[in-house]
């Protein structure tokens, strides 16, 4: 049986460094919104996670 960690934040993509402090999940900084969307998309394809918007400049990738 496969063991999968679910409902945890796998990665954070943000345009605002101030919004993320000491994250356990890896943080990816993006220069602008377009890059942020693109990085989040690429990460979600690799992790099979889902992209969620926190509306403060951060996107998080969560495996469900």
């Amino acid at each position, binding site marked *: 049986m496969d063991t999968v960690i679910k409902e945890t934040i796998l990665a954070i993509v943000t345009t605002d460094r101030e919004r993320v402090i000491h994250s356990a999940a890896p943080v990816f900084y993006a220069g602008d919104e377009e890059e942020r*969307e693109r990085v*989040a998309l690429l990460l*979600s*394809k690799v992790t*099979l996670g889902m*992209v*969620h*918007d926190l*509306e403060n400049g951060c996107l*998080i990738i969560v495996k469900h």
Partner: protein
Amino acid sequence: MADYGRVLVSGLVLGSAGRLLLLRADYRQYPSFPRGYVTHLVLGIIAAALGAIAVPALAEKEYTAVTFLALAAQQFRDIRSMERDSLESVDSTELVPRGSDYIEDIAKTFEARNYIAMVTALSASLVVYLSDSIAAGVLAGAAVFAGIVYSLKGEKVGDMAEVVEAKIEFDGPLLMVDGVALMNIGHAKAREKYLTRAIAVRIIPKDDNARVTLGNVGQRQALVHNAATQLGIRKDVDEPEFTPIARRNTESGDIVMAIFSMEPDIECLIEAVKKTPVLESSKRKPLDSPAGRKASD
């Protein structure tokens, strides 16, 4: 020993025919493959044989033959666990899983179908033995079969709720259907797709019984699975944002559901939802209890 050939054969044939009639790929889309058919047909014939043989055995005062029926019950329980195991093992590879409640319901149905084959065979052979007329046995078997099948015909979601089209909108990244938040979708493109091509329904329960039953998580998973299999789903494993979800309006008890289907036809979605069976395990009847009745006033 008297000639029990007619008794045995008529029971066996009727029981097996009954199992064959019940063996069809229905809304569950299962079993839809030849090997599944063979397994269930053979087990159904065995069940019919056990039912048919009981009458001659009892007529010959071989009372130990009754233990065979107990053996049969054990055998059919194994069928239930066989179905459960096989469906559970493939559930993780479904784009929209059935969920354990639906699987249990299907497994129970398969177990029950073998009992139906056995009882049909038993009644047919009994009547042939008593009346010495095959025609009477066939009639009795058919009547018992039809009676059981009719009484086991479960409720459908359409019987206990109204299903209407619902409106999809976004509150920031939150996908909303008729004001209920379904999920947070971060991708702008995915949001665009939902707004332009997805369809949604609202399921309005008719009474308190329906409200509790439809609130069951397993029942909701069965709903989305049925909708996704029947309409086709536009989704792959790396696109979890297109997984259909049914959420509950906690104020009214209504269920809302959005789906990004291959065929964005709202009439078909409503039809698929209405035809979804009400799972035995999710069925609740609070209105049958004094407290539940009083609370609903």
